[in-house]
């Protein structure tokens, strides 16, 4: 071959590194050399540092705050308390869930670690000394950390600010610690179906409180430039545009005078969606001092005060025929929201998408009721690597299926297959109101069972149980099954908004004259590799190599408005916006190409990286040539330049699914487990970058491993956080983490421009029940029905103990 040989079609496709290509990540050059730019790396001249005085008590009156000694500490410039913020009406702030939250303790504290005062100093050492010197007098109040006790008649009144308010943002409140009751489905019809059923299984399934715990904690740098009236806010924000709008509404600074920048973010997993007191205090401190102010929480503060997840008590009833066909599902959730309802959900969904709890199954009738409750625990309720309570829903239904299988004395894999929504039923209307876009569950399930030799595993398990009973081994074998269906990509503006902002997303593209491009989106990567993968979508759509496309996100002065990255929404929503913007570019490029080729617009067609004259592929104009012409030629009826913007309102959610199987060895004497095999089949529709998808699966599974097998935010009876450091809050190391086998099927979304569904959270949603079901399954032969997570050593040991497996 010589240089004049034109590239083949396949070579041209490969050159683009478009969709389907395991393109290496463009982000990695800076990260591998220590040149990332995270918020704590931001350093501005004269920058000050803020640090919080936090409550040691879970419930107490604040009798007095004496800041005199703190002000005397060298380097301390200011100490803010609620009294200082009250004149600005910033001592409380609205939450994403329609409640309000104290920015600094206003008369009382409601959870351990609550922000009481904010010390501003020249550096973080002086700030810490100042925090130590603030003297706060508290008067302790009775503490309630159990949501069921919180609803008892004589329970302590937590939210005195709500006295007399019999309704909140989500309807009626029936008790002083009650937040809302949210109901979906037909309860009467569900009760009737269950009442008439041949077999009914009932169980309380608890999904414990945990925390997203990204390796980088939350933080910000607020810089008020008093000369030009402009506030710049760098921060660990998963939704920078929403932060700008909130900051404007709260501060009264016009939105165009606020610039929010999310720099590199060291993992988010939902922790960085919310607005925290640290941001508000830093902004106020910068306005007061006229200097930039940095606040970065430490790990204990992160675990104690920002963004817990889960804490759902889910009482379920599931009914079936004696052949195993499910006839009804009833779910009631007691949801522990902590001291303030700061859940990060779309406004109309106070329990998120918990109503996806019918899972992958064709269930004719169902009901969901959720009671939100205040307790003396930290606020949050974020979606920890999941789309708005989807992981709770998936865990609930996948446990209920297992319990039903026990009740039916049936194999749990067979029970699932018997009840899957069939391929020909899509689009499928669920009993709780969702329209599942596409799926082929039986194909995925069969592939998974075959891959692990499911029948062989069951034979081995039976042999093991016999050996155990004969006293030849002290280890049991568990086979954890899960088939999950997610609901991601929030979401259609008609029913999804956050603080009134519709949950669209956006992409703006500029093609440069020489045929390279920059695209900006309303999302923000926290490790997902957007700079790599969005360029791949555009490469395939526009025909410009991904390597020639810069992706920018996170600067609200330059990026188009978007709702941010969480809930696996980037690919379903912003990815669609990218494709649609790319198509606008292509449409204009077609006109330019036709003009250059002197044919009618309809006589050219797109071919990888060019437009060709139909029937005469030797006559073509490459996108590079077209881009140049867009800036260089006067084309009648066509504006110069080549740019496009798309704001994409998704017509529906997407519904990724998957089949996971975990094989686990359990030592009944120590409670120690070992994961022998983990097989994960994911169907996320069209696959943009297989390498990145696999990486997301590995990471999500490891977070699921942590949650299922040990990770929790635990409180004692008086509201002390027992798991405030990484000694006790379980994050597995490489040593405790198994090797995963990943696999896939491809069932594109019919309504998404490129058929992609999103994958970032699937492995967490499906992984938790797979690990947990493996534990349960190991003990099924000995009569175990339900044991709550996390399955750490002592809790597994207790299962064995309670089943009489210890002599």
């Amino acid at each position, binding site marked *: 071959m010589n240089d004049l040989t034109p590239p083949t079609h396949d070579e041209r496709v490969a050159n683009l590194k478009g969709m389907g290509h395991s393109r290496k990540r463009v982000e990695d050059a800076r990260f591998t050399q220590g040149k990332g730019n995270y918020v704590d790396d931001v350093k501005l001249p004269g920058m000050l540092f803020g640090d919080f005085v936090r409550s040691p008590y879970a419930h107490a009156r604040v009798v007095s705050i004496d800041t005199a000694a703190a002000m005397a500490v060298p380097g301390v410039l200011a100490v803010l308390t609620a009294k200082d913020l009250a004149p600005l009406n910033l001592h409380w702030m609205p939450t994403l869930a329609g409640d309000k939250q104290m920015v600094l303790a206003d008369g009382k504290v409601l959870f351990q670690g609550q922000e009481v005062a904010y010390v501003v100093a020249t550096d973080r050492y002086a700030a810490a000394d100042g925090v130590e010197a603030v003297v706060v007098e508290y008067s302790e109040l009775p503490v309630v950390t159990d949501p069921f006790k919180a609803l008892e008649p004589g329970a302590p009144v937590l939210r005195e600010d709500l006295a007399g308010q019999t309704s909140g943002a989500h309807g009626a409140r029936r008790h002083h610690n009650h937040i809302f009751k949210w109901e979906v489905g037909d309860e009467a019809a569900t009760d009737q179906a269950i009442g008439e059923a041949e077999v009914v299984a009932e169980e309380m399934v608890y999904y414990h409180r945990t925390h997203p715990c990204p390796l980088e904690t939350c933080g910000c740098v607020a810089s008020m430039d008093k000369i030009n009236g402009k506030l710049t806010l760098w921060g660990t924000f998963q939704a920078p545009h929403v932060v700008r709008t909130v900051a404007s509404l709260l501060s009264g600074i016009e939105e165009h005078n606020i610039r929010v920048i999310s720099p590199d973010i060291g*993992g988010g997993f939902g922790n960085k969606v919310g607005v925290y007191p640290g941001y508000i205090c830093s902004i106020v401190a910068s306005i007061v001092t006229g200097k930039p102010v940095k606040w970065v929480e430490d790990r204990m503060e992160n675990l104690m005060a920002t963004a817990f997840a889960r804490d759902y008590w889910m009482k379920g009833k599931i009914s079936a025929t004696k052949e195993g066909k499910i006839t009804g599902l009833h779910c009631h959730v007691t949801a522990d929201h902590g001291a303030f309802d700061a859940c990060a959900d779309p406004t109309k969904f106070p329990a998120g998408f918990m109503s996806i709890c019918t899972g992958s199954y064709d269930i004719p009738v169902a009901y969901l009721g959720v009671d939100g409750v205040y307790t003396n625990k930290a606020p949050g309720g974020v979606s920890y690597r999941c789309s708005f309570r989807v992981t709770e829903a998936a865990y609930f239904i996948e446990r209920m299926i297992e319990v039903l299988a026990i009740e039916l004395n049936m194999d749990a894999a067979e029970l699932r297959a018997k009840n899957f929504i069939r391929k020909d039923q899509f689009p499928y209307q669920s009993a709780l109101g969702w329209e599942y876009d596409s799926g082929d569950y039986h194909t995925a399930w069969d592939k998974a069972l075959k891959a692990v030799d499911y029948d062989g595993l069951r034979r081995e398990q039976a042999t093991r149980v016999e050996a155990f009973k004969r006293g030849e081994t002290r280890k049991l074998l568990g086979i954890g099954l899960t088939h999950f269906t997610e609901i991601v990509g929030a979401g259609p503006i008609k029913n999804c908004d956050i603080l009134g902002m519709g949950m669209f997303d956006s992409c703006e593209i500029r093609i440069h004259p020489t045929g390279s491009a920059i695209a900006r989106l309303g999302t923000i990567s926290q490790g997902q590799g957007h700079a790599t993968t969005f360029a791949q979508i555009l490469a395939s759509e526009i025909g410009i190599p991904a390597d020639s496309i810069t992706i920018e996100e996170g600067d609200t002065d330059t990026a188009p408005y978007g709702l941010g990255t969480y809930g696996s929404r980037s690919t379903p929503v912003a990815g669609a916006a990218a494709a649609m913007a790319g198509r606008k570019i292509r449409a204009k490029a077609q006109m330019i190409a036709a003009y250059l080729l002197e044919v009618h617009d309809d006589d050219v067609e797109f071919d990888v990286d060019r437009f060709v004259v139909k029937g005469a592929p030797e006559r073509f104009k490459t996108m590079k040539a077209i881009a140049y012409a867009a800036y260089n030629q006067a084309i009648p009826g066509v504006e110069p330049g080549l740019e496009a913007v798309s704001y994409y309102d998704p017509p529906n959610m997407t519904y990724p699914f998957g089949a996971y199987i975990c094989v686990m060895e359990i030592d009944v004497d120590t409670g120690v487990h070992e994961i022998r095999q983990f097989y994960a089949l994911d169907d996320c529709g069209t696959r943009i970058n297989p390498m990145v998808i696999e990486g997301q699966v590995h990471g999500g599974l490891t977070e699921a491993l942590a949650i299922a097998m040990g990770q929790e935010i635990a409180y004692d009876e008086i509201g002390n956080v027992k798991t405030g450091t990484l000694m006790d809050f379980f994050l597995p190391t490489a040593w405790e983490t198994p090797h995963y086998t990943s696999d896939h099927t491809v069932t594109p979304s019919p309504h998404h421009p490129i058929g992609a569904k999103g994958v970032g959270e699937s492995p967490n949603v499906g992984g938790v029940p797979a690990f947990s079901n493996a534990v349960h399954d190991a003990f099924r032969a000995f009569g175990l029905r339900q044991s709550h997570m996390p399955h750490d050593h002592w809790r597994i040991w207790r299962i064995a103990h309670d089943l009489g497996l210890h002599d």
Partner: protein
Amino acid sequence: MTKSIIKLTVNGENHEVLAEPRELLIHVLRERLNLTGPHIGCETTHCGACTVELNGKSVKSCTVFAVQANGAEITTIEGIAGPAGLHVLQQSFREHHGLQCGFCTPGMITRAWRLLKENPDPTEEDVRFGMAGNLCRCTGYQNIVKSILAAAAEINASREAAE
């Protein structure tokens, strides 16, 4: 309390900083020397994001006072690449998708660098055990392990080719 002059050789360059005894090495590196590659993740010696090389040891610099390192030779992620370009480990992490958000990556690579010096031909088990002082929340470690094993193989192959 009394500040003192602390002399550090970092990535081959000599520095003198005036610091309080209580200043942690990680803060001196990040805030006084502007070496923001090493990060702060947990502050209780569990996560390893702050790992640097200190006198031939992998050390969590959030648990060392800078004054303790007075006179020491330190290498951070910024000093891992040589004049000829990126270190094999840095390339291998990119090649095998051994990172996502990048926050743990400087500590991971700095630790892996020492690991391969002490054990040039590790097994997967050696790597998992030898990297157990570094937490990652994104990757599930599988591709980190793969990156380190591939780097070891490449270093060994080029060494053998040279011999």
